């Protein structure tokens, strides 16, 4: 038998893996359930409730108007875009990352993917790129939904529907991408650590929705703890949202903080993103797949 030629597979391995992973993630009903859930939550909590209370308040008389209409207008989209992301958006994207990675262990698909040709690192790189594309899409959809809804509100209320500044919108987009990207990478890491969808989602949600809040609650009582809790993933993301103009506690969205300055919050969030990614790559490279 003649020596077989190694057929060079076309393209960069991680790009091939990204195309494959994007295809299976986009055809996964769970992805669309989560995207739909986030879009609905964002619409309801950012606009619908506030608009209703604005209108009921105005009907009761000017003195009763608790909610101002400014926050519901297109010009305010950069301020409100990220406000739901530190907690709700983050939890949903974390679920997406944890399910996308954790389910692979339950289905046995990591074994299949790792024996296709691109190395393990390239396959994980492909998963991460595919999830990044989905997260970028989610933030973009959120921008679209927010602009559309706020324009409707402005027209109905007969006030200015002037669009927001492009630079502000771009900054808010980048902030949203950073916050959701960090949580998504966290989900991937938990999915890899627990090697399953159920435990990873459970642990991730307990952390984002419960543990950080509890720790923040007791931070005042224990000296020095506040310095730690202010720099935890949720606090960093919340501070980033706050720095981008979202209303903090009292004004509205849960999870929005002013514990850190904008640049510090962005740096900590980016730092967590990097740590989650690095730990994920190390885990996938080193661990046996049984």
């Amino acid at each position, binding site marked *: 038998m003649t020596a077989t030629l190694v057929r060079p597979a076309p393209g960069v391995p991680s790009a091939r893996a990204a195309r*494959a992973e994007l295809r299976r993630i986009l055809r996964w009903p769970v992805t669309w359930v989560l995207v739909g859930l986030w879009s609905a939550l964002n619409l309801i909590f950012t606009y619908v409730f506030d608009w209703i209370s604005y209108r009921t308040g105005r009907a009761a008389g000017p003195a009763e108007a608790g909610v101002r209409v400014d926050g519901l207008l297109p010009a305010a989209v950069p301020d409100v875009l990220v406000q739901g992301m530190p907690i709700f958006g983050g939890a949903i994207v974390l679920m997406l990352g944890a399910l996308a990675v954790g389910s692979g262990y339950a289905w046995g698909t990591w074994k299949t993917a790792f024996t296709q040709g691109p190395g393990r690192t390239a396959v994980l790189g492909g998963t991460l790129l595919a999830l990044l594309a989905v997260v970028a899409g989610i933030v973009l959809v959120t921008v679209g939904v927010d602009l559309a809804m706020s324009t409707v509100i402005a027209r109905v209320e007969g006030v200015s529907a002037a669009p927001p500044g492009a630079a502000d919108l771009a900054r808010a987009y980048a902030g949203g991408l950073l916050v959701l990207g960090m949580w998504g990478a966290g989900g991937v890491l938990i999915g890899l650590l627990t090697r399953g969808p159920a435990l990873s989602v459970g642990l991730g949600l307990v952390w984002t929705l419960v543990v950080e809040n509890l720790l923040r609650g007791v931070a005042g009582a224990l000296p020095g703890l506040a310095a730690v809790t202010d720099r935890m993933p949720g606090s960093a993301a919340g501070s980033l949202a706050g720095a981008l103009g979202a209303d903090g506690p009292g004004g509205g969205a849960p999870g929005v903080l002013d514990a850190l300055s904008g640049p510090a919050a962005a740096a900590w969030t980016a730092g967590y993103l990097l740590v989650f990614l690095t730990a994920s790559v190390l885990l996938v490279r080193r661990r*046996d797949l049984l």
Partner: protein
Amino acid sequence: MAETIVSTERLTKTFGGRTAVDAVGLTVRRGEVYGFLGPNGAGKTTTLRMLLGLVRPTAGTALVHGLAPGDPRAVARTGSLVEGPGFYPYLSGRENLRVLARFQGLPDADADRALERVDLTGRGRDPARSYSLGMKQRLGVAAALLGDPDLLVLDEPTNGLDPAGMADMRALLVDVAAGGQTVLLSSHLLAEVQEVCDRVGIIDAGRLLVEGTVAELRGSTEIRLRAVPADRALAVAMAVAGDDAVRVEGTELRLAAPAGRVPELARALVAAGVDIAALHTVERSLEEIFFDLTTAPREEVPA
């Protein structure tokens, strides 16, 4: 000398304190169907996982296509189905293969061709989760065939199949081997291995007990004789086959001699006035060898 496509040397894997694979040295040559035979839990799957780079050996070395296992270049030339197929349950069979084709940088047509090869085109649009066990297994083989790899590593491909499915799978393996692809096939089914494999390695409790061609392992044939009077028959048999080549099993004499000696033996027996009740030859089945090897008390081998 045929080219070696897989070789391992003292390949070992321990999990905690338990040794799953113990100093295994096996050789698979290009173009052959190699049967990796052993009872459940013998270490077959762990060995195959090491060859695919899914599990890191604790000690020893392995070469696949002359490269370290798990090297992307080696993986790209190896198709595998290890411990059941792993598919995205919500995607159709066809779509699953198309996703895998993207990993390999292949066009969709290659995925469709693989689907056709395992006779699943008719159900290609149904979600993989709706497939029967046999169809899932065939889809797994289709995934392994994708990209025409030089080496196919198939772990118990007939597991869970009904008799018709097993026959189909065997026919497919023979077909694949006829195309020149090397197949490393693990199984606990002896008949399967005997039927399709060129060479066999038998593993038990993590140790590779023996490796060779099916014919080598079976060894020589045996002539079995029942005749009266027994003492005269024994004397004739020893005269024909040699003193050491005859043993008595109950009322039967067993001669370690080739089948070609049967007419000579029959003539001698008749000439000596012995009445022949039964005279036939038997080949040891792989099953007998297997049970001889796997039930024999294990020798203590000094480290």
